[in-house]
């Protein structure tokens, strides 16, 4: 008897991720990323209040390659968490909870987050 052909119960590592699962995980991941980003935001304010010498060190750190990667990442995290947060608020009213609707809104949120991030850096540049 060949055991390999038997069906396995679905598990996180073996079945195709539904897009709604990706958006759910991303919501939490971007939230945690922004909790860390909040430290840098407060650092920006506090270092500005601490005088030009301290502020220059802050600028030096954030003006590095890693600094710019983090800033782009936090801008995406913000626009993703914002878009998907609005999706959650719509769900709170009892709307959009059907499977097809949730899948469609998941793709909408993914596209919106990329477009908003691109628009942000376009305005900034």
């Amino acid at each position, binding site marked *: 008897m060949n055991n390999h052909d038997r069906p396995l119960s679905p598990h996180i590592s073996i079945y195709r991720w539904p897009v709604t699962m990706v958006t759910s995980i991303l919501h*939490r991941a971007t*939230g*945690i990323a*922004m*909790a860390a980003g*909040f*430290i840098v*935001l*407060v650092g*920006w*304010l*506090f270092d*500005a*209040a*601490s005088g*030009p010498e301290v*502020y*220059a060190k802050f*600028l030096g750190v954030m003006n590095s390659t890693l600094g710019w990667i983090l800033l782009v990442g936090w*801008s995406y995290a*913000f*626009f993703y968490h*914002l878009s998907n*947060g*609005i999706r*959650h*608020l719509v769900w*709170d009213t009892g709307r959009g909870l059907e499977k097809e609707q949730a899948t469609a809104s998941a793709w909408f949120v993914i596209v919106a987050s990329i477009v908003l991030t691109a628009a*942000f*850096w376009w*305005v*900034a540049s």
Partner: protein
Amino acid sequence: MVRHCGVYRAHGSILVGGVMSLRSPLGRVLGLGTAKDGTSHWWGQRVSGIALAVLGLWFAWSLATLSGFSYPEAVAFISQPVNALLLLLLSITMAWHSYLGVQVVIEDYVHSHGLKIASLLLSRYAHVVLAAAAIFAILKLGIGA
């Protein structure tokens, strides 16, 4: 939610729709559930989230349109009264929203009871320190300028 009146019985249980409920009358009235905080966490997340959608978009727009991030430019931006007020609201609301979110993540993933309590304490203190540091910095620049 069952809104109609139950029939109170001598030993403290209550008949709801003809079925005996094991929940105490006080527990039913308070509506706090097993976690003892009712809907306050959920509701606080929504209140702070809606505020952050507005404050966050203002901040993103401000950063994107700021002429530069040199020391004089940053101080001029932060100390401008309307900006200082909105930065205060942003910092306080973000500390609150971030605390609520990190709390759920800790409760979900940290299973050891002692480590969970320690992490929740650390997170709460850290968020208070961050909020206080932001408030101090904004007021110092806003009032000092």
